[in-house]
């Protein structure tokens, strides 16, 4: 019970502070919106172009903007040295990692929700029946993203050029997830007139969850090694 209480404390305070200050969420969302604005403008001449290539920019926006949030995941704890006090608390270190993953997932998903709204407006998306599966696929993609990203952020926060190194390390690790969501793009975003044969989004969700399970079981074991002295 105490471990659960500690886990909920880590999640609650990270999310509460972020909702109050909106630092990470705002920065991420603005970055993502800029990407979508530029892409939408570049393809504004043709509705077909917008619908054909829009999904790519949807994932690109989430992918790149998410690193802004990840880079700040441990900033507060490292800045004030609070991480040392947390690591001598009677809380399993792996639970601290899980707490950070859940908290980061929440506010990256807030950003993803805003990105989806912007996508609907800028890329003329009107197939409302697909919204549920788009959100579900996005949620699973972001889950894999933060599972890997939080571990890497824990290592890179204190390094010189850490933000750049984080991106360099994160992107190759995320390519399998990108391949999976990209393969499901047709089923997720395209209208029936443009849809090609593609793996069903449900298959993509299943594979993403399997990836998340693999990565989280590895990261939970590795995280104590990252923070130990």
């Amino acid at each position, binding site marked *: 019970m105490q471990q659960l209480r500690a886990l909920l404390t880590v999640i609650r305070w990270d999310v509460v502070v972020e909702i109050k200050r909106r630092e990470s969420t705002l920065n991420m969302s603005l970055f993502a919106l800029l990407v979508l604005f530029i892409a939408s403008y570049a393809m504004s001449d043709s509705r077909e172009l917008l619908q054909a290539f829009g999904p790519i920019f949807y994932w690109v926006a989430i992918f790149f903007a998410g690193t802004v949030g990840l880079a700040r995941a441990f900033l507060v704890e490292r800045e004030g040295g609070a991480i040392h006090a947390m690591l001598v608390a009677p809380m399993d270190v792996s639970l601290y990692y899980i707490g950070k993953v859940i908290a980061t997932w929440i506010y990256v998903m807030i950003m993803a929700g805003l990105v989806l709204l912007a996508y609907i407006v800028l890329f003329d998306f009107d197939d409302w029946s697909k919204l549920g599966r788009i959100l579900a696929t996005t949620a699973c993609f972001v889950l894999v993203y933060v599972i*890997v990203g939080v*571990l890497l952020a824990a*290592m*890179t926060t204190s*390094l*010189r*050029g*850490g933000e750049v*190194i984080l991106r*360099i*390390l994160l*992107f*190759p*690790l995320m*390519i*399998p*997830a990108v*391949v*999976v969501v*990209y*393969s499901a793009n047709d089923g997720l975003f395209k209208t029936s007139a443009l849809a090609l044969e593609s*793996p069903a989004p449900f298959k*993509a969700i299943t*594979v993403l969850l399997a*990836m998340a399970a*693999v*990565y989280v079981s*590895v*990261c939970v074991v*590795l995280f104590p*090694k*990252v923070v*130990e002295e």
Partner: protein
Amino acid sequence: MTMESLLSIGVSIGFVVLCVLLHRIALAAHLLIGFGLVVGTLYLVCFHAPLEEVTLGTSYLIFYFHFPSAISCLTIFVIAGVVSVLQLKSGSLSHDRRASSAVEVGLLACTITLGTGMIWAEAAWGQPWVWHDPRLMTVAIMWLTYVGYLMFRAAVDNPVKRARYSAVLGVMFSINVPVVWFAIRFFGKVSHPMEIEFAEDVRTIMKTTQWFGAAAFFILYLGLWRLRYRAQTIHGELERIGETFAARKI
């Protein structure tokens, strides 16, 4: 179990034993043997292997350099992953040097794989690169990940932290390789098969040349790994002496 599979297992075990024994001989001798075997591969390629393959023509000859590098880089990255696990358990800096030097040599092999692959692709397909093929993408992503690994190491000054963090990355990246492979295999849109079709009468000599080359290059890469490990050990020793002097305020 057939005779052929028993023979393969026997040869594989023998090869592993040979590699272990090679580690005990002088480094210069090891490298000489490696170079000698690579020259032997060249001899086989030039004078024994047939010059044309059924579908790919003469362009297939680069396969005898492409395949050994590919198999070597995969094996060496797996070894780097295993040594990374050992480093996490023991905290030993020598394990860190083994893992990082393995990654450097593996990256060399990976670069050669990509380079020879692109030359071959240009000749065989008319374009140096195609997306969605599982093998090409896996090797390209491996290359990116391990370049990132080396860049990361350059950014960490503290040797103890660098060793620990690199080991964490080594484990993560070695798990990533099969994940990438399966993701692209099942979700890649177009697959460009790359099959070397051997004519009946030359199959044996082609297979022999292929695997002889693989063994030769692997032995050479192992020698390079030892060389790189030695260089890192000397560097580490210099660091230790520097720290000792600093601690004693000399």
